[in-house]
């Protein structure tokens, strides 16, 4: 099972596929209604929780998001953690630009609030 939502000028790429290891949410996220935008992905995570591979990596590579997206991403991360409870090898990989310290701090805030280990990766955002 898979879901793919292409990136726009205001919304990120979302690629979730239970048959492969790498899942991705990537880009800028400033939709007015983040609940509506992220709902298909949230539902997919709930409906397919048992289908993800045991060694799945969820990659988050965001260069900016608004507070509405912040809330939606928090909910997405909560759903991923529920999957991780059953499949402990699952990793959350938070990629950030070397010059975008703000996004690193945002990821650290999520990790603290969710009491979960994130793997922080410094990379160049395009």
């Amino acid at each position, binding site marked *: 099972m898979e879901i793919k939502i292409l990136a*726009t*000028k*205001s*919304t990120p790429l979302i690629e979730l596929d239970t048959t492969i290891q790498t899942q991705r949410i990537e880009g*800028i996220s*400033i*939709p*007015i*209604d*983040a*609940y*509506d935008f992220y709902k298909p992905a949230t539902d997919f995570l709930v409906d397919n929780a048992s289908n993800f591979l045991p060694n799945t990596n969820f990659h988050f590579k965001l260069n*900016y998001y*608004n*507070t*509405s997206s*912040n*809330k*939606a991403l*928090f909910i997405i991360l909560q759903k991923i953690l529920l999957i991780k409870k059953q499949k402990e090898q699952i990793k959350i990989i938070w990629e950030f*630009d070397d*010059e*975008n*310290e*703000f*996004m690193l701090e945002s990821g650290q805030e999520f990790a603290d*609030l969710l009491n979960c280990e994130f793997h922080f990766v410094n990379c160049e955002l395009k």
Partner: protein
Amino acid sequence: MNKSHLVTYQGNLSDDLRSFMCTTLRQAMADNQPSAKKITKLVGFAIELLDNAQRYSPESRVEFEWKTQDNDLIIEVKNMASKENAQRLYEQAARISQLSPSEIISEYKSKLMNSDFNDHGGAGLGLLQIMKNGAENIRINIQDMNDGVWSCVSSILVPLTKNENLAI
């Protein structure tokens, strides 16, 4: 008083326009090399105000100003809204302005973790995020324009260091 209007916009607001503003403001500041972290925060303030304007303005029309005044950056957004939404924004800003930094962080985390989205897709976090990230204050002026439409002017003041002021 030393005052400069750096970016102004009047017109319709859309997802594409907000995205364009986000990119343009980031690039304009990056060219002058203030810290990337500060850029993201300042652009974030503008985006949150524009989000609110687009979410609650019946016609999604907005007047946007990004200006410096002495040693402060002022981001100002004017839009129309219903009486209910205008008064709610006014009261929320007034209440948040009274909170201490630790209370702001506590309320922000509580809302992020426990509250639901509202009917307009907002999370009620925008003003808290702005204060949490270093705005000195948020001022909301509202005015009855008759016919059930109210004018909302949202202003954020951010103190700048001398170097930041020169760069922005």
